[in-house]
């Protein structure tokens, strides 16, 4: 499903390039549930953004579902993001002026689906996440856990090849966090491939496989 080879990524700091990701090799098979565990500042989000085709890598190869992402242009990547990736952001990234329904339905409309068709398809996901009574609420009227569920619903609604979650419990209280992790387990059992990043070992433990990232280098199992 995912195959990364020798990924490097750095940020320019004045004249010099500060390396953040160093020669990352990473593979995820279909149906896996992987947690990337690492301390704050280790480059988790940077890696996640590259996995999600939202950021450019400096060098390396990245195949997603057999497609050579490192050779794909921005325009085609837009389509990849829409169809293959469900991204769950650390800070939800909901559109504040849209209500829950409008937020969740967007990825489907972007595919050119009619509003009716898209609404039909949303319904199952909304039920799955228990948001039926919230569809007309604005994000500002929701709790953190509810917002995260909207964000998950939006990621799921297009049946992507892979779900990517950046610290999905990071901003939630314990019980909401537990709910989200339980949901992830269920989603994985339903066949979804999931990659989650976290700095919390307890959270990582709910995944079926853990990889560690330390100072921009990726290690399988213990470093």
């Amino acid at each position, binding site marked *: 499903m995912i195959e990364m080879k020798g990924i490097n990524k750095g940020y320019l700091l004045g004249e010099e390039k500060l390396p953040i990701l160093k020669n990352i090799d990473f593979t995820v098979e279909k149906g896996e549930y992987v947690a990337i565990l690492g301390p704050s500042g280790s480059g988790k989000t940077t890696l996640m*953004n590259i996995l*999600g085709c*939202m*950021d*450019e890598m400096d060098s390396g190869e990245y195949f997603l579902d057999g497609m050579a992402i490192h050779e794909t242009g*921005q*325009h085609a990547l*837009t*389509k*990849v*993001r*829409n*169809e293959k*990736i469900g*991204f769950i*952001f650390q800070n939800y*990234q*909901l*559109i504040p*002026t*849209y209500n829950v329904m*409008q937020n969740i339905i*967007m*990825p489907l*409309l*972007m*595919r*050119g689906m*009619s*509003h009716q068709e898209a609404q039909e398809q949303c319904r199952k996901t909304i039920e799955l996440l228990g948001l039926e009574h919230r569809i007309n609420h604005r994000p500002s009227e929701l709790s953190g856990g509810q917002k995260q569920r909207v964000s998950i619903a*939006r990621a799921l609604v297009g049946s992507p090849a892979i779900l990517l979650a950046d610290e999905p419990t990071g901003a939630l209280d314990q019980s909401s966090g537990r709910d989200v992790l339980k949901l992830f387990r269920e989603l994985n059992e339903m066949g979804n491939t999931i990659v989650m990043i976290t700095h919390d070992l307890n959270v990582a433990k709910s995944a079926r496989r853990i990889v560690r990232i330390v100072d921009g280098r990726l290690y399988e199992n213990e470093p």
Partner: protein
Amino acid sequence: MRISEILRLVWLNLSQNKFKVILTSIGIVVGSATIMMVLAIGTGGREEVAEQFKNLNAGAIDISCEGETSGGISFAMGGGDMIAFSMPDNNMPSGSISIGGGGSFGGGNDWGGFGEIFGFDGESTEKQEFVTLTTEDCEELSLFVQGIADATISYSTSASVEGGDLDSASYYTIAGVQDNYDTISNLEMSIGDFLTEENNENKEKVCVLGYSVAKEIFGSAYDAYDAEIYIDNRRYVVTGVLSEMGTVASGISPDTAVFIPYETGIKYITGSSISPTLTVIAEDVNQVDTVMADVETALADSYSDSTFTISDAGTKMEAASASNETLTLLLISMAVIVFIVGGIGIMNVLFVSVKERTNEIGILKALGCSRRDILLEFLLEASFTSLVGAVLGVLLSLGITPLVEIFSVRVSLSVSGAMLSLLFGVITGSIFGFYPAFKASRLIPVVALNQE
């Protein structure tokens, strides 16, 4: 994305930000209203000029003696030198300036440019002899100067008029004219006939009333016809009434004048203290300059010590339309400045509001919204916003029009003007509103998402 879905989003965004839509469009409102007003005022000015010159003969040349001003008031209001009537003091009711171009030009006094154009080029030179042009001069000119089709002499004064519905005597402009004055000045009769040669030769006490005068004194042209009025306590029979002629650029304002035979006026009203104007018509409009030069030579032979003001209608018309054009240009540059300033304001507001939405653009990109869809959404939002502004602007200018007209500025609103200002508003707003979105849409998703 389907167009219908994009439109749905546009509607969603606009309806949830009504206040912002209004705020954003205020610049457009002002800009569109300005464009519309400028066009309307420009057109109004052109129409006004055209109207003022409509009964002016292009080949007409006016000659008057610019004598000592003690003899009367000439150039009453800057429009005066065309037919520069002077009038004796004793007949001049104080405060009433109803003579010459000045009085007749009342309707056009909003055009500052006219004062300069028609201005006081008749400054009196010292040691000048003041002469009175006569009927003989008129006949001689038409006899000895080549290329003159017709010539007439006229003067105007003011005298008390009684009769009809008037409760008391009031002063009116009295014009002493010859029988061909009506053809030369393109006057039309509403009822009856213009003064005849016999009227003049026999110094008959008959008169032709201007339209407004007839209405004031008798209520209507019909009632005035064949009635009697008293001018300086002498009875005159009304033999005709003119049609309404409107404002004229120069000369006697026909609507507010009482026309009497030339000789009659000299005999009963003015005596010899008049300063008449000769008007000659060139046969060929293209020969006006030659005729003017010849007239000047001929007059110099007769009156070597005097200077005459000789002016032709064609030049006046050109000057007037040129000054009008200048004014239009001025107004247009003003509008352009307003638009640029407004445009920068709009751009700033939209820039900030789109900047605020850079994160939204980032989300849309992350979810896989194509650049085309994002651009279309923001373009439509900007266009609708500016359309609202432009429509409000056009409505605003409709509201302003009566206020402007209070200052007797002629405003000629037009559908094409409205369309143009709509177009202007929508295009400006769209471009300025679209550009920031255009820039944001080019960012890669993380950059757009992380921008605050």
